[in-house]
């Protein structure tokens, strides 16, 4: 009979469909795993509601649980329980190493444009904080575009959610 720990280990092998350097567990989108009588219930929290990777994530979770010989029940939880603060320290380092600046911590209030424009976001390539906001939006809803004035490299910055 499969255990919750075995399920978590298996889920940690599933890459994010859009940024495969990080696993779904690193990304913090697995809210819970419940095992009982060969049934595994997994709660999945979307990053952004319009994220097109959500269906692929759900399918990968179902296939992984099935491969463990258990019956999957994957539920998508559409509330505010996921935050970029749930990305694990290992996940943040994997993002940075792949050229994605990890998100600043969530604050009590809503993010402000002035914070995004401030020179506090570090370039994932050279570490300089001499970077400027190019676009609040980027190639996916979860990312902004910045430019590093030090190494002249554009890069993607995870938005704080």
């Amino acid at each position, binding site marked *: 009979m499969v255990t919750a720990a075995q399920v978590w280990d298996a889920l940690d092998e599933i890459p994010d469909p859009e940024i495969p350097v990080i696993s779904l567990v690193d990304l913090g989108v697995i809210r819970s795993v419940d095992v009982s009588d060969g049934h595994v219930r997994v709660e999945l929290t979307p990053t*952004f*509601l*319009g*994220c*097109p990777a959500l269906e692929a994530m759900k399918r990968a979770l179902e296939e992984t649980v099935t491969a463990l010989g258990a019956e999957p029940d994957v539920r998508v939880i*559409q*509330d*505010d*329980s996921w935050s970029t603060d749930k990305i694990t320290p290992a996940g943040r380092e994997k993002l940075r190493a792949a050229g994605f600046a990890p998100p600043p911590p969530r604050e009590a209030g*809503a*993010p*402000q*444009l002035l914070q*995004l424009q401030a020179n506090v976001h570090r370039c994932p390539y050279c570490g300089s904080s001499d970077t400027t906001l*190019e*676009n*609040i*939006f*980027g*190639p*996916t*809803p979860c990312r902004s*575009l910045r430019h590093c004035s030090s190494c002249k490299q554009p890069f993607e910055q995870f*938005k704080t*959610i």
Partner: protein
Amino acid sequence: MNELLLSLADDELVIGWRDSEWTGIAPLLEEDVAFSSIAQNEIGHARALYELLTDDADALAFDRPLDAYRCAPLVELRLLDWAHAIARRWLYEVADEIRIAALMEHDDAAVAGLAAKINREEAYHRMHAEMWRERLQDAPQFRAAVDELWPYAVGLLPEEQRDALAARVGRDEVEAIERGTHTDELAELWNEMTMVRRSAPAGAQW
């Protein structure tokens, strides 16, 4: 069917469609990216809201007759100049913030939780809209566009939320162009957005 949630979902679906029309033709490449991303978020919000109301979000989004849509006239308009597009985005986001804040206090935890999630994402839309409002606020074309769209914006919200909208926008409340009748532009959009599903027999697999 919860009228309030359906209205909000239809607004988000239709403004998402309208925002997506700027993909590839915005005045700046960065705005192609921004409007595309905003559109994707808005349609994602519509889907999540439809899922609170039904098991088949696609059917609710695309299989209804035109008259069954509950969206407000503001989101239906096909706005082909930048001043109008920005004026609508700004007015829409100010109004949306007010109604989302009210939904975050909803008795149903599923509604309140989803509203809180939507609010996190909308913070970035509000930043974008406010940035453009600051940039264009002295341009006569922008001021004229806000004048023209203001009665439509009032019609987005229920009566009890209109004072707050007028205060935030810094305008007097005017007679609203109310939700309930549709513009001719929606008929054109409905035809386009339901075309693929209408072209295939029921039960088609995609």
